[in-house]
């Protein structure tokens, strides 16, 4: 059996997205900046895609900028807010300890340029506390940036509450919604979101394309200088086919969101229940306020990379936050942020199911993860010490 359980890493493109892209590549290949009809036709197709994306987000088409993906959108949103802040003499940013590196590394860069950054605690359940966020806002705060849902542990943040606080306090609010768009209902107006980042390949669109929503009136700084594409906010000939594929994928995801979420949440909970039977294991993050497809566990006494390799042998594609899979000596900053100690964080497993995952596949995953964890524990000196009382179980 072959099971793809890494949908938080990327997703398979939808048939609708592929079919929408092909005419853009074969027939409507003009440059949207050209004035002859072939070019203007491409322009029209591009703008239709923009309107489609905007409609799903309850935004206006003029508020959507196409980017190369989520990382670029995160960079542009944060650097734009920082530039506006700098001009107004405000150089403080509030964020969280478990943001994606596209956000954290951009904030690090701003710190080197003199900005002060407050990273909020996300507690054991992986949730930001709105009252702590409000308390962190200072007179010189120019931006609050909090992810919509976490990519590793799937916890969904109280975005509406945070948006209301930021609006009341007159601070720009950006959310990295890469894991949420296409999976959760988002309304940028009612949630008071000023800036939002998204990536198409997380919701069955193509890779290499995403968008940045910027509320009308929020000034964007351009990361790429050149032509006047994207109203001067993003130079370079537009990737029309990719934008069209993204819009088609998003439209389909939005139309099926409710039924998909219901089915996936039920399967997710079945998977969580099954894996919870493994002794000395624990679910990472709040069990309820989490993405419909996300299951993240820590297993004591084993290491994540070996777990992934053995699961791959059994046809299961999964991911882990262990140091060995991150290419550094430290395990995932997300797991450390929710208080998992190093020893335990190394033994993490993330399974992110998709819209087409079946109950049979879930049961296969439960059975195989159980077997593989047991096998690795069988020759782990850490596990032996724990069982023999020489160490203390944490989970």
């Amino acid at each position: 059996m072959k099971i793809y359980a890494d949908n938080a890493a990327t997703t398979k493109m939808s048939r609708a997205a592929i079919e929408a892209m092909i005419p853009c590549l074969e027939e409507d290949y003009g440059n949207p900046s050209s004035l002859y009809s072939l070019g203007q036709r491409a322009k029209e197709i591009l703008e239709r895609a923009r309107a489609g994306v905007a409609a799903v987000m309850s935004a206006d088409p003029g508020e959507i900028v196409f980017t190369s993906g989520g990382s670029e959108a995160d960079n542009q949103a944060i650097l734009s807010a920082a530039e506006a802040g700098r001009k107004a003499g405000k150089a403080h940013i509030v964020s969280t300890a478990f943001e994606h590196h596209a956000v954290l590394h951009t904030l690090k860069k701003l710190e080197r340029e003199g900005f002060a950054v407050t990273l909020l605690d996300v507690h054991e359940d992986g949730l930001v506390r709105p009252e702590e966020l409000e308390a962190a806002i200072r007179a010189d705060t120019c931006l609050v940036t909090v992810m919509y849902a976490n990519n590793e542990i799937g916890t969904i943040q109280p975005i509406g509450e945070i948006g209301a606080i930021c609006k009341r306090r007159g601070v720009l609010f950006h959310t990295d919604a890469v894991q949420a768009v296409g999976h959760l209902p988002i309304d940028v107006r009612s949630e008071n979101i000023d800036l939002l980042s998204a990536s198409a390949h997380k919701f069955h669109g193509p890779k290499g394309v995403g968008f940045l929503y910027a509320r009308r009136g929020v000034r964007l700084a351009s990361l790429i200088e050149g032509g006047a594409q994207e109203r001067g906010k993003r130079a370079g000939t537009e990737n029309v086919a990719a934008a069209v594929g993204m819009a088609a994928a998003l439209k389909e995801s939005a139309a099926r969101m409710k039924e998909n979420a219901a089915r996936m949440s039920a399967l997710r909970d079945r998977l969580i229940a099954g894996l919870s039977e493994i002794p000395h294991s624990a679910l990472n993050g709040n069990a309820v306020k989490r993405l419909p497809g996300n299951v993240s566990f820590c297993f004591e006494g084993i290491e994540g990379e070996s777990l992934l390799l053995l699961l791959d042998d059994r046809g299961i594609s999964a991911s882990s936050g262990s140091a060995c899979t991150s290419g550094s000596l430290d395990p995932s900053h997300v797991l450390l942020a929710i208080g998992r100690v190093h020893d335990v964080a190394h033994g993490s497993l993330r399974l992110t199911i998709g819209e087409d995952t079946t109950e049979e596949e879930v049961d296969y995953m439960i059975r195989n993860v159980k077997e593989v964890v047991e096998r690795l524990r069988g020759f782990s000196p850490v596990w032996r010490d724990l069982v023999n009382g020489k160490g203390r179980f944490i989970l």
Partner: protein
Amino acid sequence: MALYSEKVMDHFRNPRNVGVIEDADGVGEVGNAKCGDIMKMYLKIEDGVIADVKFETFGCGSAIASSSMATELIKGKPVSEAMNLTNKAVAEALDGLPDYKMHCSVLAEEAIRSALEDYYHRNPDKKPADQPA
């Protein structure tokens, strides 16, 4: 391209000499759980020869494969030869390791040396004159 060589995957999937020797003559443990790698080696030594060796490893695929290969390289060999096992020999026997995984082979070398030092500690009379304390 695969992450690891076929040899690494073979030793990872079917590790040789896995387990514990209850009445071992030397035991060595290196690494720590904080960094994500721990190797424990058990040696049975008879007439200056590694009569038996077993290991337990908490770690990634290359850590498990490195321990397994290291045990194969020293089993049946004179203690003096085992003492000179290098991480390079372990990595070469595995048809290479990715650069950022070379520390796994270093850990295997250190685990065996640590077990031999434990053996010498228990049997000071067996220690060769040129062997550092």
